[in-house]
């Protein structure tokens, strides 16, 4: 049983021996409700397989019954109201207890009773409503994410409410003269502040203490260290002042500074977390597909459908047209035409003979073939490319390393300064000693490095996300801002991956309309890119032609050559390559564009000229990049003629053609050695290592899923102009980051000496720190506006 094939089903005839997809009867009530955009005809039986189900379902005993909770992804949602439609579709099913869709991340959480219904029934119900359910990759980490989200929210709330209340207790001290408040009441106020600072210390500051402890064990000074020391010292000193007012530790309390400090830092962490969660959710969409089912040969020779996970090395599987090969294997019995776009990014079909190997993940284009499986899962070449890319991507520079390098010595200096000033002032005035030391610790705001830079990058990431560009790594902003060179892949990036019909040449006496109708009819069952182009042209009324209906009786496809058919009763037709159609003398001079010929019993009838079409905004994008001062390159594995043709159309500065993946990598390395920073825009998995090697990488939304998952930016709409906007955004981001860092430097340069000299009371230190944080975050939020 197939998943939905890409060829359009036409009622007039059928091609091949595949079973028709199930036609689901629509419930009358559903036809009135708003529906989703998809026509879902997949077979969801694989979702009931226990091995598959484990990936996205948890079971629990509730009220003595065994209930299931599944997390799935909803495909096809285009707005938040779609969530309602999906939930409705599920709530009316028997056995469903609860169904909730989180619109922002397109996640469905559904509680259902396995005794009353099945996962496939749930998916079918949602399918009837026009959306597709897919098991979520790593769905069970959802529980982890929710736990983390709760923790962050908890810390923020505790810090917030305690801060507000402690400030209320501290307020009287600010507005009265010393001595106005009766000592009893003053003591009570301090005691109350102490009690409410405890939750902040115990619950909200946990991450600082654990971070500082970790740094301490490694013998480093990190950004959490002065924060933790500041919090502890402040608290201890304030507690002592509260319970032993006449003791040596002085008389001042700083509960308000303490709680405000923690609250602001927690606020920053919360915002950071939410933004990260949203981006992660959007990217989940890219990596999810229905688990594959394929036919495995049993010992009695029959084939049974089985989940891909259950395959073992040595199994023989039958792969239908339009399916992907489930593992690396060797072809037996028949040749196959395969689409290795997954690896190369180019859809030109490749012929594999019997005895040759096929690669996992590539698609079988012609009829069903049998393959003996050699490698599965992690051993396949596909998986090896994945691990290669993952390793390459961890070699990139990190802003955190730089920040630590600066922060470490700076913070050590600050700590030293605090101690020195404390000792110095101790000899002069005990009370002030502690105040000064605490002021020094609090006033040096770690905000600049810990809040400002991520805040700016997150604001930019959010702004880009709204325009359809997903940012996977925040450090990419820094890399992109410094980029001098942008390298484009050709096929699929500058051009659409599909072929388009450009011209029809016909024999004398034949009309273009007839010929196109015939071509389209013959090509309709085939998955070859040339066939798809013909079908698209005939369906869209190419050239304004009205096509006569054609009655095709039968079609056979010969792998790599063409299609032969019986038409209109008894006319024989051939559609395909020149040799297949017996076209020789009429064959026009070989140009760069692929040609498909149509021949009938009398000989050559027509030639269809196809070409790769340039993306609409490719020229604009390249011009804009040049205007921004960036050099553009085209790197392609294709023939020089094709590459140069596209290069001249688009206007890139340099072209490299005929490059293997290794050569592409070398070219990038060469550019980098010359001191240029390189950004790469691509779409194929074989571009993967190249994308990882470049300083910044873009993958288009139509790219191979793996390329998308490992590049810095994913342009969902496939608009090349977004590369230009991302570049602009990155440059503004770095400008803002530098402004923030400059402010932080100036602020510290002024306030730390002031604190050391004793001119800064702790409340001023706290206030200064707060203002500094706000300024920095406000500056970063300017990036939210569409620039």
């Amino acid at each position, binding site marked *: 049983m197939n998943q939905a094939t890409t060829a359009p089903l036409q009622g007039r005839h059928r091609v091949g021996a595949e079973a028709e997809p199930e036609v689901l009867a629509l419930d009358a009530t559903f036809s009135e409700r708003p529906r989703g955009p998809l026509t879902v005809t997949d077979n969801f039986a694989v979702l009931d397989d226990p091995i598959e189900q484990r990936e996205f379902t948890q079971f629990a005993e509730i009220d003595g019954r065994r209930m299931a909770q599944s997390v799935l992804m909803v495909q096809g949602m285009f707005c938040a109201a779609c969530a309602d439609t999906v939930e409705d579709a599920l709530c009316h099913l028997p056995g469903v207890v609860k169904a*909730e869709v989180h619109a922002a991340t397109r996640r469905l959480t559904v509680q259902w009773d396995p005794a009353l219904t099945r996962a496939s029934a749930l998916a079918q119900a949602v399918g009837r409503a026009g959306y597709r359910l897919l098991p979520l990759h790593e769905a069970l980490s959802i529980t982890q994410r929710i736990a983390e*989200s709760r923790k962050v929210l908890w810390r923020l709330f505790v810090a917030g409410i305690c801060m507000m209340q402690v400030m209320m207790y501290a307020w009287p001290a600010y507005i009265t003269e010393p001595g106005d408040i*009766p000592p009893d009441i003053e003591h009570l*106020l301090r005691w109350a502040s102490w009690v409410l600072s405890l*939750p902040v210390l115990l619950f909200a500051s946990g991450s600082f203490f654990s971070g500082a402890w970790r740094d301490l064990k490694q013998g480093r000074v990190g950004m959490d260290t002065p924060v933790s020391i500041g919090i502890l010292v402040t608290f201890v000193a304030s507690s002592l002042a509260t319970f032993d007012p006449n003791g040596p530790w002085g008389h001042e309390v700083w509960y308000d500074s303490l709680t405000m400090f923690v609250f602001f830092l927690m606020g920053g962490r919360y915002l950071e977390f939410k933004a990260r969660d949203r981006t992660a959710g959007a990217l989940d969409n890219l990596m999810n597909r229905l688990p594959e089912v394929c036919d495995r040969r049993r010992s009695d020779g029959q084939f049974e459908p089985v989940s891909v996970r259950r395959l073992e090395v040595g199994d023989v599987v039958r792969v239908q047209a339009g399916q992907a090969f489930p593992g690396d294997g060797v072809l037996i019995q028949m040749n196959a035409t395969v689409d290795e776009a997954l690896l190369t990014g180019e859809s030109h079909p490749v012929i594999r003979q019997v005895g040759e190997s096929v690669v996992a993940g590539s698609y079988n284009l012609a009829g069903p073939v049998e393959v003996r499986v050699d490698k599965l899962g992690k051993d396949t070449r596909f998986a090896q490319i994945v691990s290669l890319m993952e390793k390459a991507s961890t070699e990139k520079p990190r802003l955190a390393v730089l920040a630590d390098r600066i922060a470490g010595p700076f913070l050590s200096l600050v700590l030293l300064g605090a101690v020195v000033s404390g000792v110095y002032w101790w000899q002069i005035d005990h009370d002030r000693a502690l105040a000064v030391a605490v002021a020094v610790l609090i006033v040096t705001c770690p905000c600049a490095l810990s809040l400002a830079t991520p805040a700016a990058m997150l604001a930019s990431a959010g702004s880009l996300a709204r325009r359809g560009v997903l940012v996977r790594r925040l450090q990419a902003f820094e890399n992109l801002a410094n980029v001098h060179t942008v390298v484009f892949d050709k096929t699929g990036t500058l051009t659409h991956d599909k072929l388009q019909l450009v011209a029809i040449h016909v024999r004398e006496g034949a009309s273009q309309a007839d010929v196109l109708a015939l071509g389209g009819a013959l090509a309709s069952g085939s998955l070859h890119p040339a066939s798809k182009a013909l079908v698209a042209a005939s369906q869209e009324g190419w050239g304004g032609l009205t096509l006569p209906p054609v009655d095709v009786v039968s079609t056979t496809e010969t792998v790599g050559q063409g299609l032969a058919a019986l038409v209109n009763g008894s006319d024989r037709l051939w559609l395909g390559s020149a040799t297949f159609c017996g076209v020789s003398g009429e064959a026009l001079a070989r140009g760069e564009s692929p040609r498909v010929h149509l021949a009938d019993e009398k000989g050559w009838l027509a030639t269809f000229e196809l070409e790769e079409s340039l993306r609409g905004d490719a020229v604009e994008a390249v011009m804009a990049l040049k205007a921004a001062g960036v050099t553009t390159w085209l790197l392609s594995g294709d023939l020089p003629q094709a590459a140069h043709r596209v290069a001249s159309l688009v206007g890139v500065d340099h072209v490299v053609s005929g490059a293997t993946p290794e050569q592409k990598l070398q070219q990038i390395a060469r550019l980098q050695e010359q001191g240029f920073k390189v950004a790469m825009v691509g779409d194929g998995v074989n571009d993967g290592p190249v994308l990882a090697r470049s300083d910044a990488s873009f993958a288009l939304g139509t790219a191979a899923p793996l390329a998308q998952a490992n590049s810095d930016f994913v342009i969902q709409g496939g608009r090349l102009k977004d590369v230009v906007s991302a570049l602009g955004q990155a440059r503004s981001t770095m400008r803002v980051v530098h402004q923030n860092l400059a402010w932080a430097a100036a602020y510290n340069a002024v306030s730390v000496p002031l604190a050391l000299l004793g001119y800064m009371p702790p409340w001023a230190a706290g206030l200064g720190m707060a203002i500094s944080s706000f300024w920095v975050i406000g500056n970063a939020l300017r990036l939210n506006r569409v620039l």
Partner: protein
Amino acid sequence: MEILYLLIPLSVVVVLGIIVIFWWALQSGQLDNIEREGERILRAD
């Protein structure tokens, strides 16, 4: 101002109570999907 001897400790108790209530709300999953409330106006019912 003797009333303050009552009010200040009372306020501490109230805030602690608020924290406990928030803990309960958080653990019962009410705050897991805050955006959902904003989407409520888009729903038919």
